[in-house]
């Protein structure tokens, strides 16, 4: 009987963006030129930090301040599941989110876009998945914002996601996009993902089940983290 903890399956190349992506200017001086060293997975990669809601306070409604003041913009509900590639729920996973406000401005000193800040919207949230891998939060639909990557460049509406799984090899930061956004077709960050189906999995779907009558539209966004190898890596000595 083996007690070897299996590693994670290697990523599907076409479903992940490369480091060097000509359309996205900031990759030019930041992508490694040497091929990466492929690491066998050890306990360092198959273990991960655990986060308790006691120490990492959840913030599931980004639209209301402690004093009850409401953020400006279109309130939305976003929910979904975090699964692994074997469709198993990733439980108690910490999911962090951050985003621009309804006007397309981040509450960040580096954002100089000429759009108003909203004193009632910080744009940061933190939720934990439940036993089925489900999460849910309430926010404001973020606005599009300009960036200087190319002439007349605008980022599509998006919410940034940071997710921790059960192994550090599952660590992921990504972005959720909105269906029907005309800017998606023009966005080099979205299009850095070679495979069209993989791109489209980052686009949330409108969900009437999540929609709360007379209150807010619901969007569904599922995330998939790497799955385990079917069999443990063996030592062939």
């Amino acid at each position, binding site marked *: 009987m*083996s*007690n*070897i*903890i299996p590693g994670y*399956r*290697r*990523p*599907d190349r076409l*479903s*992940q*963006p*490369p*480091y060097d992506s000509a359309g996205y200017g*900031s*990759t*030019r*001086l*930041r*992508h*490694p*030129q*040497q091929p*990466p*060293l*492929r*690491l*066998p997975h*050890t*306990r*360092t*990669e198959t*273990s*991960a*930090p*655990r986060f*308790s809601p006691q*120490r990492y306070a959840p913030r599931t409604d980004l639209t209301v301040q402690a004093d009850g003041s409401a953020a400006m913009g279109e309130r939305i509900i976003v929910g979904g599941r975090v699964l*692994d*590639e074997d469709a198993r729920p990733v439980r108690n996973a910490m999911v962090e989110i*951050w985003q621009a406000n309804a006007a397309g401005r981040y509450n960040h000193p580096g954002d100089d876009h000429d759009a108003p800040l909203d004193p009632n919207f910080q744009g*940061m949230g*933190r939720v934990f998945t439940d036993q089925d891998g489900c999460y849910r939060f309430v926010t404001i639909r973020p606005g599009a914002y300009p960036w200087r990557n190319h002439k007349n460049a605008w980022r599509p509406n998006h919410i*940034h996601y*940071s997710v921790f799984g*059960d192994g*550090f090899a599952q660590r*992921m930061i*990504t972005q959720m996009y909105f269906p029907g956004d005309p800017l998606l077709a023009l966005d080099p*960050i979205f299009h850095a*993902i070679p495979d069209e189906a*993989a791109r489209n*999995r*980052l686009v949330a779907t409108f969900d009437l089940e999540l929609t709360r009558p007379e209150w807010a539209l619901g969007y569904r966004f599922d*995330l*998939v*983290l790497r*799955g385990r190898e079917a069999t*443990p890596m*063996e*030592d062939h000595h």
Partner: protein
Amino acid sequence: MPTPTPEAAPAQGLVASAHQTAGPYWHLVDFPEWADTTRHFGDRLPPGERIVLTGRITDGAGAAVADAMVEIWHADPMGEYPDPNGPEKEFQGYGRCATQADGSFRFVTLKPGPSPLDGEARANLRQAPHVALAVFARGLLTHLCTRLYFEGEPLNETDPVLNTVPPERRGTLIARPTGPGTWTLDLRLQGEGETVWMEI
């Protein structure tokens, strides 16, 4: 030595979601206290050596990478990691730090002990003390991963990961002491002296 399996899309089931850059505004989830993994303990520290890990990140032009998020993950001083299904341990070697205008990061943590390779079956195989590093930033569509080792550790000679690195590039992974309890490792994203980045 474990043999990594050839890359292949899973025959069935789901495919992992695509990564996307953390961008320049990730500081909305920057909590500077997270750079100190010992912050929960006050003056009743668990046994172990408290250390500082520092370094600077530069790009292919030698310019400071001033907008990066650096994360560390490492074993505790006994070389143990948390149970994947267990609760948060009293101490865990996870930290997050934003780089400063000069590209520098700084963590306070407890020095990791030698850790198991991959489980109980080969408990006699120990990895040299090391720290997993992940770098997220604008211009990185997926985060970059590497490891930090400590100069002078006897187990460095037999560490199964370190020894797969060509000897002439091994130095990019080995932190040097630069003060009492302070270890420094600079990271280079691209070009001369490029860090050995790892596909984990």
